[in-house]
């Protein structure tokens, strides 16, 4: 846990922002796919900390990428340089390691791109190869970061492949297959990735669930264990799961 100073916020158009924080402990320790919980000093509404994937790091700084849609994310986008937040993390289990020379396909939907910059940086350092497939409803919903090239898919065909990113990968699979598949995006996309590719290629899914604490205290973020009884917690056991570990259905106590 550390008190982190806001260094600045950059708008990426629409409601998308990147905020930079001085947060040396987290910047040093974080692994791709891990997240932080951010709470606002002296503010009781929003009360609970908000979960953010760590988008990237630079030296002692942490970058968080988000769409400002709720009370917490809007407040975040309005923070000024010098403001302080409390950052708890890095939390959870990120993406697995990849050996040199192996190929990873990274599948993202919309603002699932948040995990890509840090992931790409670590894969480069590992000398692993990767390709990023990015899907969204329309061109304006696609997220791009400088220096990171993507193969795009849009539902309306306004940019790149006309169709879903899952269809794009299905097509690409006919020519080539990666050693691993990583996915981050809306639950519907993750379900499609799981059912289409989970049985073919080692596939890892970064799930999203409402969380109160991010530490396993509240048990508020259950993810159903595949074929079995009970739940994992998205915050502690995830947010990245191997696709055969989880089901997206329900499955609580029957009472």
């Amino acid at each position, binding site marked *: *846990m550390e008190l982190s100073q806001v260094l600045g916020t950059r708008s990426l158009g629409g409601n998308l922002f990147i905020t930079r924080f001085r947060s040396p402990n987290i910047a040093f320790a974080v692994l791709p796919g891990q997240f932080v*919980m951010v*709470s606002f000093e002296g503010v*009781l*509404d*929003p*009360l*609970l*900390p908000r979960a953010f994937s760590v988008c990237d790091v630079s030296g002692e700084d942490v970058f968080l990428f988000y769409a400002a849609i709720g009370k917490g994310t809007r407040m975040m986008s309005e923070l000024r340089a010098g403001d302080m937040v*409390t950052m*708890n993390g890095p939390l959870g289990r990120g993406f697995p390691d990849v050996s040199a020379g192996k190929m990873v396909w990274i599948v993202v939907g919309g603002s699932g791109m948040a995990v890509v910059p840090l992931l790409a940086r670590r894969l480069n350092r590992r000398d692993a190869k990767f390709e990023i497939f990015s899907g969204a409803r329309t061109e304006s919903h696609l997220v791009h970061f400088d220096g990171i090239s993507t193969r795009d898919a849009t539902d309306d065909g306004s940019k790149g492949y006309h169709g879903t990113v899952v269809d794009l990968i299905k097509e690409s699979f006919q020519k080539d297959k990666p050693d691993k598949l990583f996915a981050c995006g809306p639950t519907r996309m993750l379900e499609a990735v799981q059912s289409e590719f989970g049985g073919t290629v080692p596939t890892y899914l970064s799930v999203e*669930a*409402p*969380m*109160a*604490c991010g*530490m*396993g*205290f*509240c*048990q*508020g*973020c*259950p993810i159903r264990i595949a074929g079995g*009884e*009970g*739940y994992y917690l998205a915050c502690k056991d995830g947010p990245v799961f191997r696709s055969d570990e989880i089901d997206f259905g*329900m*499955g*609580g*106590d029957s*009472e």
Partner: protein
Amino acid sequence: MNSDLTVEIGSLHLKNPLMTASGTCGYGDELEDYFPISRLGAIVSKSLTLKPKKGNEPPRITEVSCGMLNSIGLANIGVQRFISDKLPVLKRLGAEVIVNIAAKRADDYVSLAEIVAGLPEVKGLELNLSCPNVKEGGLEFGSDIAALGRITDLVRRVYPEVLIVKLTPNVARIGEFAKAAEGAGANGVTVANTYVGMAVDIYRRTPKIRSITGGFSGPAIKPLTMAKVFEVHNAVKIPVIASGGVFGWQDAVEYLIAGATAVELGTVLFRIPDASTGILDGIQSYMVREGLESLRELIGSLKANLDRMPHK
């Protein structure tokens, strides 16, 4: 010079009045990542049941203004695994452990109490007779004075150590329930569990949590629980443990003045897992500033004329 922050609940001697609220810090050991849990007055475990429980289907939580709703459904590893896997860790970390138990049947409360009774590491038992998120047990017992008295009495017969009953606030006269617990031999009452609450997604026109209603907690409920703590303090002689929306040390002091002997921290831990450290420092400084040597001088020290209350 430091003031004396020790308090007593029955024969249980606590180094300070801060405890964790059941279900808000896992089994307690997870807190050690953030501060030494031996500094707490006591750790109250998650509600344990005879058999493991998966808990409710998601979504289980949602945030509301200055609070949250939860419907976890008593997800837990069961009493046996708690004893084999968690209790030794808590003991090694030097925590004072109070075990919270929940059940569907009176017999099961008794069985749970018997299992826990033989364990020297467990210093007390908190009966959850007030969970709002399961269909059977919990609230059903807690909102029926006779049932609450009967279960407390049955547990009392098999459990010789400190026995605390956690009351529901979802009743008109909580003082009567506290009296029933006291009459059946409880050493203390926790006031209170969460309030039944609800939130609606106005675009989908669906409840925001799957069980429709859930337990409402956080700073938003503090004034409601403050009134209940005061009511119970005036109704019984056994110690009252306040639980409801404490975030800062001022909240804890307020509860102590209103009549609480100890204070549980709950929702605050989701945001500030080491909140107890700052709260203890704050209470200590306040005591010194106010010239108070012992918490006994503060507890229940509210200056008020009860005749002014419109309904007592």
